[in-house]
């Protein structure tokens, strides 16, 4: 089986793929809103793991320049710089989603998305 041997060769990519599937399954099946936000965070970290593992070079050093070391000995610094932006944006999105959840709990008295949908359907009818 060629695909399985490729997957075992690229095991970091495989693990990030599994984490993405776990995150999206958590987001789609659970009706609790806080659990949905945790699933979104798991999806975020899986994509960050994928990006950083693309830039890895086997036996490479961290990209802090030391004198007398050639440029081929360091790992790729560009995915690290992009992911550093992504972590802060993920925290901002999480904080805004949590403030929305607090307001929803004040309005409806529950954190369950299905119950909120039922209450809204009852109010509209």
């Amino acid at each position, binding site marked *: 089986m060629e695909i399985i041997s490729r997957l075992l060769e690229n095991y970091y990519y495989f693990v990030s793929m599994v984490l993405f599937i776990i995150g999206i399954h958590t987001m789609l099946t659970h009706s609790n809103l806080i659990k949905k936000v945790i699933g979104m965070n798991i999806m975020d970290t899986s994509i960050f793991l994928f990006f950083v593992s693309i830039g890895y070079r086997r036996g490479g050093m961290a990209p802090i320049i030391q004198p007398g070391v050639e440029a081929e000995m360091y790992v790729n610094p560009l995915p690290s710089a992009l992911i550093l932006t992504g*972590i802060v944006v993920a925290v901002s999105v999480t904080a805004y989603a949590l*403030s929305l959840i607090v307001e929803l709990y004040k309005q409806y008295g529950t954190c369950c998305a299905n119950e909120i949908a039922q209450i809204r359907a009852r109010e509209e009818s």
Partner: protein
Amino acid sequence: MKDIVIRTVCRVIVPFVQVYGLYVIFHGHLSPGGGFAGGAILGSSMVLFALSFHLEAGAQKLGHETSSYLESGGGIWYILIGLLGLALGSNFLTNRAAGLGFGLPGQLFSGGMIFLLSLGIGVKVASTMFTLFYNLSEEEGSGGDHQ
């Protein structure tokens, strides 16, 4: 929370955490770290203080007015340093190409304006994290009577 152990340990630990946060901010161009990580450590130290004592005590150390001024000031400081590169006859947000570089690479004062930009980012991230935590955990009518 009225635990004497937690209060004593936090009173000893918080200054060291803040010094470490400032170290991470100012040595961002020499060692791992930078504005975001150091700012998050500074904000976490203030949240630790507010959790171990009282939420009101944390608000006395860093009030809402001061926090909002720090937050806006971090962004404006960043833009002002960018305009400094523009005033010296180069593009927006350039430092060493505009003639601002000084020092040899590897020393503390070597990166041009990099550590000033990191200071702005760090102050902004720290005040943002503390304000978010304070507004999320504040009670409704009792004026921040937590726990």
